[in-house]
């Protein structure tokens, strides 16, 4: 028997109101005609129009998107490799240092990660721009990817891989045909996580970028430092809408896959 009391209902309602009201208010006020951001002046999509004509924002969005695609893709490859090394390679010299370097960036304050990478780039005389931000984002997000993928790898039955090897697969074929499809959901969520982390990052990008590459969070931060701006409300609404659609689509896809797997399992039992 599960007891769901009034107390539970109230705390859930208040809790979710607290989590969602600020964003809902932001979305509502993005359609405000008035420039005064706290006074309602009627419905208008004016700020969306202004936003889409603002070259600086469009440039920043394009830079951010490129950085996120490149860094999350490289981070997924490196992070998956790192997960395989952690879970499958057994003992090797320097394993402790390796696992330390995987976990440390997860708890390292962003200001320190940013500062240290900037000092490295200056030290070796690398020009700062998109390339250096990609390097920086790849480094911290590969650690997140490797944590996500290694938790999947740890529960994976190695007998499946051994069976493939017994049936004449090479190591590489066994990996591609057996292991990879099984860990694929974790690899995909790792990529999504890396992608969002990169889209979202302000601090590390501020340290590691140069004047040529302003990312969207840097642009947003510099415009809201002095207060609320209607254009940023419009931009925030667009971003919130994209994330909501993405998350709902992803969870529906996961559910469908789980249902299909269950159906297969049931069919297999019947035959």
């Amino acid at each position, binding site marked *: 028997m599960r007891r769901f009391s009034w107390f539970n209902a109230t705390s859930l309602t208040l809790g979710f109101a607290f989590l969602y009201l600020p964003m809902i208010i932001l979305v509502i006020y993005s359609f405000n005609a008035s420039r005064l951001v706290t006074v309602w002046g009627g419905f208008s999509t004016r700020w969306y129009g202004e936003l889409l004509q603002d070259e600086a924002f469009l440039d920043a969005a394009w830079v951010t998107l490129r950085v996120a695609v490149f860094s999350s893709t490289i981070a997924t490859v490196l992070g998956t490799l790192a997960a395989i090394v952690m879970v499958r390679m057994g003992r090797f010299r320097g394993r402790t240092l*390796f696992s330390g370097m995987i976990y440390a960036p997860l708890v390292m304050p962003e200001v*320190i990660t940013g500062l240290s990478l900037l000092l*490295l780039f200056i030290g070796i005389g690398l020009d700062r721009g998109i390339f250096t931000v990609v390097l920086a984002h790849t480094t911290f997000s590969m650690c997140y990817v490797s944590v996500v993928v290694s938790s999947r790898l740890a529960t994976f039955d190695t007998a499946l891989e051994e069976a493939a090897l017994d049936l004449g697969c090479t190591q590489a074929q066994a990996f591609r045909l057996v292991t990879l499809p099984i860990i694929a959901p974790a690899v995909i969520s790792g990529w999504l996580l890396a992608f969002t982390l990169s889209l979202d990052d302000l601090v590390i990008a501020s340290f590691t970028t140069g004047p040529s590459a302003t990312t969207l969070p840097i642009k947003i931060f510099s415009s809201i430092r002095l207060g609320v701006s209607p254009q940023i409300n419009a931009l925030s609404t667009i971003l919130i809408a994209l994330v909501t659609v993405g998350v709902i689509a992803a969870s529906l896809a996961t559910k469908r896959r789980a249902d299909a797997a269950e159906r297969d399992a049931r069919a297999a039992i019947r035959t």
Partner: protein
Amino acid sequence: MRRLLIAVPYLWLLALFLIPFLIVFKISLSDITLSIPPYSPNLDLSAGWSGLVDFVRALDFENFVFLTQDDLYWKAYLSSVWIAFVSTLITLAVGYPIAYGMARADRSWQPTLLMLVILPFWTSFLIRVYSWMGILSTEGLLNQLLMNLWIIDEPLQILNTTTAVYIGIVYTYLPFMILPIYAALEKMDDALLEAAEDLGCSRLEAFWLVTWPLSRGGVIAGCFLVFIPAIGEFVIPSLLGGSDTLMIGKVLWEEFFSNRDWPVASAVAIVLLLILIVPIVLFQRNEQKAREAEG
């Protein structure tokens, strides 16, 4: 093949995590100069052994001594730890009832509730902090509401104070608190509560003697997940906090970008890490214990 697989991620992390960190350590022991880069000494490898000796001789702990002398720094460290600590407690007080309600809710509802908690986590951190600026400002919605209800006569100054920083931290880190507590509560067997009540416990006693101890692992994990990142937080104090809100992440940023004092910024970073080591080690130990308990 095996060597190559290990080498690729290993070398990447060495080059882009460990070496940069050692550079910070080195610069924290250097002196500020008016050159580019603005610190000395530089390690001159072409001078061979004598270059290394000169380099080591010129290093000193001056910057760390400086940090102890100027009270800005130790005040900033103390107030970061304090703000992180208080916000962690508030987040726990807000998050626990939500996690509890989720765990009690009907099974068919739980995936949806879980998604509703995770969704804000995928939304831009910056935007979530920003959403409070319009609410908390002196002409903002909260003040308008309170004045219309005749609760206050003149607007409260909430934005640009430490109160706003607390609100910001609680709001943005709430999912990190809810998720581990929910995970712990959800595994709990309801029969235990029924047994406690059959044996004469009141509901409150049953909660205190059964539910709370069983959720403690999740509570500890949640608290560390909020406390550790909150100490080094930069975005929240710089957008919501005022000039009197001292947090070390902000000090480091300003030392680097405004004062261009790289050696002191590096020393600030090293001390910040030393402070973080204690909670991080405790957190790791808690996770280890949880894993062992699960077998």
